[in-house]
């Protein structure tokens, strides 16, 4: 006698289970399926391409009516089950239908989460789960000037937004976190995804909290964010997550956690009832993707046909985004655990970013953007836990290269490459062209190959390959050159190339630079990040948003950290001048905040040492009130302009050295520089301001101003060298500003002026600053432009509330001990 098998849910899991059973034992069960949706079973994951107009509903039907008929399956479509009687072993459906079962399968999937925002019931607020939702979205897309807002920057939200943009809507994704798909992607991949979506017409608003849905006449008209912004729309899609649909099971008193709790045989606490798919919770996990569902269906089909030996062990997950032309893959744990190691590959030419995480000699995670062809191979390596130590060197290049090269030495691999094989992706240069150029033109080094063929002349990532071709072609005659020292171990490039590329390619953020220049680490290190931050700031004044997390603590909090974790505060004293009022304010603040040490610095100003971090804004506000601003004693910036009393008082003074110092400092303060910049102005050659050991020094003489650069008196002692002599104060200021701007634009990070001068040569600097009035003026103008957004007191900004999280603990004092 056939047994009665009843399945609730005519979706991905329910129908796949039937197929698996039919494969094993087609005669065993009389099968009845209930579906809440009034249609046959279709491929839910393909709703995204349907929305985007890349597929039709007919294309995505998995089992048509003939399939049900031919296999003798009774389908009650559009008849949701409303109750289960586990004692009588019957289910009852809407419309009064009651059906008895021997075995019952719950495959009810999940429901989209609806945020309980004000206005959530307005017309035009939809979720993304079934074909009816797609129809509702398409109807909204046909309205004139249609605009959509999608809440949720996960897989579903992005696919919805992309589909709507394809349908001509203006689509904006609003995401709570600051990286899209943050569960699957790291920051680098998330950044690339944001850019790729933008290119496809999808805007993203990250780190945004939704406050209320606005409407007119019962229809949605916009989304209001917590920060007050309003995004207008006539369609609002909520794609913020799913919740297992376990209501029936709960009502039937089956065990329910997040989903219907099942054992390894997919059995609920009632031995005649099973659950599969998104409604099930196995070993504490409720899945939201199809791969685990296929595993569950295979196990349950075994259990239902062969017997209880089969066991479902849980599934590892991988994710692929279905946005045409945007290859995104993620699997496993890319944010690892102890002892994890990252392998990173970037190909700027092709817009590729890959990151593999190794743990204990095995692959633990993978994130890929732009080229996910090897996703399945990596995923298999993860699932099987295969040791990868032996293929580590080539792993990141994918399956073909790894398997092609296993055990082969790299030179032999290059030798084995066909002449038509592409070596340089950026410039499309193949091996044959390089070999021919070397032989025909008698090239012997990398630079000449670069110049002639352009191979490795752009991003430089194929440099090792080009060198190997050189080595192979020339034999011993070739010696690999050592290029400029790289910024740090995260990149092969030197500072000069990085600076140049930022300007030439208009790179405007740290992740963008890291991608374009193929950084080898996902998010850099304390050496490169501050350097990149400075280069970007200098290249795009007023436009680049400073990344404070890429600054050393002193520059982040605008004070100097001390050995005990307190800070020192040094207000500016322009040109070393102060007033009784300022001194009183300093005395008062020292009293009020019990500041232990007040010291006169070597730079003609006063240092308050030992200030508690949380007191900094209050201390600054007192100093601000007396007219004082930050002295940037912490910064790669203009520090002090040391002066002497000059013509004001001194019997030898030739020019107003104090006044010039003050004017320079007032004009130049707040500018970020590659390393600190100290200046001095002395009123005569007796040089009481020690101007000749400063980065920039001025010696006043009767006939004008001698301008000197490249002094140092710290780790090294160096006297300055003469740059030029000018007649007027205005010329002096223009020259000083110009030389500092040239240094700002061309100095390497942490390279003080004397080192920069040693690298480029005093003559070059003279030629551009002293001898070329037009260039001098242009440099001056660029500095002046940058100063518009730089001469703002960072202390006052923080007193006004900026970066408050920096100066407040996250929690009030916890009255417990850490475990």
């Amino acid at each position, binding site marked *: 006698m056939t047994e009665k098998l009843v399945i609730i849910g005519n979706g991905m899991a329910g129908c796949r289970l039937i197929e698996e059973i039919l494969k094993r034992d087609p005669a065993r069960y009389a099968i009845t399926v209930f579906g809440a949706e009034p249609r046959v079973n279709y491929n839910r994951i393909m709703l995204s391409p349907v929305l985007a107009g890349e597929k039709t509903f007919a294309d995505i039907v998995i089992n048509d009516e003939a399939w049900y008929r031919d296999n003798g399956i009774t389908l009650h479509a559009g008849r949701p089950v409303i109750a289960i009687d586990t004692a009588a072993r019957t289910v009852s459906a809407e419309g009064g239908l009651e059906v008895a079962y021997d075995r019952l399968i719950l495959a009810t999937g999940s429901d989209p989460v609806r945020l309980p925002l004000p206005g959530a019931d307005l017309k035009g607020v939809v979720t993304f789960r079934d074909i009816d939702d797609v129809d509702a979205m398409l109807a909204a897309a046909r309205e004139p000037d249609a605009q959509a807002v999608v809440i949720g920057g996960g897989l579903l939200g992005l696919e919805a937004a992309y589909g709507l943009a394809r349908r001509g809507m203006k689509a904006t994704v609003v995401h*709570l*976190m*600051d*990286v899209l798909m*943050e569960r699957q992607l*790291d*920051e680098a991949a998330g950044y690339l995804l944001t850019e790729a979506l933008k290119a496809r017409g999808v805007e993203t608003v990250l*780190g945004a909290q939704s406050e209320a849905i606005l409407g007119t006449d019962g229809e949605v008209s916009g989304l209001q964010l917590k920060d007050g912004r309003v995004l207008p729309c006539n369609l609002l899609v909520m794609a913020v997550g799913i919740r297992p649909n376990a209501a029936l099971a709960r009502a039937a008193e089956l065990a329910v956690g997040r989903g219907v709790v099942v054992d390894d045989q997919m059995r609920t606490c009632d031995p005649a009832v099973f659950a599969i798919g998104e409604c099930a919770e196995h070993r504490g996990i409720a899945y939201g993707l199809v791969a685990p569902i296929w595993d569950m269906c295979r196990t349950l089909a075994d259990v239902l046909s062969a017997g209880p030996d089969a066991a479902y062990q849980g599934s590892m997950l991988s994710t692929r985004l279905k946005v045409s032309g945007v290859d995104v893959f993620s699997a496993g744990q*890319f*944010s*690892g*655990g*102890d002892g*994890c190691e*990252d392998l990173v590959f970037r190909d700027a030419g092709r817009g590729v970013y890959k990151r593999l995480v190794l743990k204990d000699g095995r692959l633990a995670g993978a994130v890929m953007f732009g080229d996910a062809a090897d996703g399945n191979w990596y995923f298999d390596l993860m699932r099987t836990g295969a040791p990868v130590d032996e293929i580590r060197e080539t792993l990141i290049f994918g399956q073909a290269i790894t398997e092609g090269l296993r055990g082969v030495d790299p030179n032999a691999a290059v030798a084995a490459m066909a002449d038509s094989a592409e070596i340089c992706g950026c410039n499309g240069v193949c091996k044959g062209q390089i070999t021919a150029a070397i032989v025909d033109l008698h090239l012997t080094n990398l630079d000449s190959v670069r110049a002639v063929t352009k191979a490795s002349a752009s991003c430089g990532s194929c440099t090792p390959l080009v060198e190997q071709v050189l080595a192979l072609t020339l034999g011993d005659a070739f010696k690999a050159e050592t290029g400029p020292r790289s910024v740090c171990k995260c990149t092969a490039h030197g500072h000069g190339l990085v600076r140049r590329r930022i300007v030439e390619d208009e790179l405007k953020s740290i992740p963008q630079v890291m991608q374009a220049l193929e950084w080898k*680490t*996902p*998010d*850099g*290190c*304390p050496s490169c*990040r*501050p350097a990149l931050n400075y280069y970007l700031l200098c290249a795009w004044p007023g436009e680049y948003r400073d990344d*404070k*997390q*890429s*600054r*050393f*603590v002193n520059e982040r*909090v605008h004070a100097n*950290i001390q*050995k*005990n*974790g307190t800070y020192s505060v040094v207000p500016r004293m322009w040109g070393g001048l102060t007033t009784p009022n300022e001194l009183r304010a300093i005395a008062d603040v020292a009293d009020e905040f019990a500041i232990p040490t007040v010291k006169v610095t070597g730079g003609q100003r006063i240092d308050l040492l030992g200030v508690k971090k949380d007191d900094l804004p209050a201390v600054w506000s007192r100093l601000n009130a007396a007219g004082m601003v930050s002295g940037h004693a912490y910064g790669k910036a203009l520090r002090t302009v040391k002066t002497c009393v000059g013509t004001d008082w001194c019997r030898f003074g030739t020019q107003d050295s104090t006044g010039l110092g003050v004017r320079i400092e007032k004009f130049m303060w707040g500018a970020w520089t590659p390393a600190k910049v100290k200046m001095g102005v002395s009123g005569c050659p007796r040089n009481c301001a020690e101007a000749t050991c400063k980065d920039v020094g001025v010696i006043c003489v009767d006939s004008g101003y001698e301008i000197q650069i490249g002094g140092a008196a710290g780790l090294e002692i160096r006297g300055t060298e003469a740059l030029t002599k000018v007649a007027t104060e205005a010329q002096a200021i223009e020259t000083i500003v110009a030389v500092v701007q040239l240094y700002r634009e061309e100095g390497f990070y942490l390279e003080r002026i004397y080192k920069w001068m040693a690298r480029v040569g005093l003559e070059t600097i003279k030629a551009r600053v002293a001898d070329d009035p037009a260039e001098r003026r242009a440099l001056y103008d660029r500095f002046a432009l940058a100063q518009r957004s730089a001469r703002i007191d960072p202390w006052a900004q923080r007193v006004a509330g900026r970066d408050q*999280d920096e100066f407040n*603990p*996250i*929690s*009030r*004092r*916890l*009255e*417990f*001990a*850490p*475990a």
Partner: protein
Amino acid sequence: MNALAPVPEILWTDVGAVTDIPRQGARRAPTPQGVIAIFRTGDNEVFALYDRCPHKQGPLSQGIVHGRTVACPLHNWIIDLATGEPTGADAGKGCAHTVPVEVRDGRIRLGLVAG
């Protein structure tokens, strides 16, 4: 150790949202046993360590977070956030000690014991 000593029960205490910490940054949580530094990496992972560098007690919460490590602001030791141990040349020289921490629904909870 006395085998009968009671095992202290861990109380999970909410200290704030993941988004309260800047990405690649840290915030401080004061306790009677000293400040705890709670870090958020670029990958959105959250870690908690005592805010004391094993070298000379530098406040790790003030360092630059990169990958799963933080650079101490005082002398640039690189500390592994998951273990609290220095890495590279300074490996094996002490430990900043971890504090149990977990993230649920975007909220951070520290593992603390009463008393």
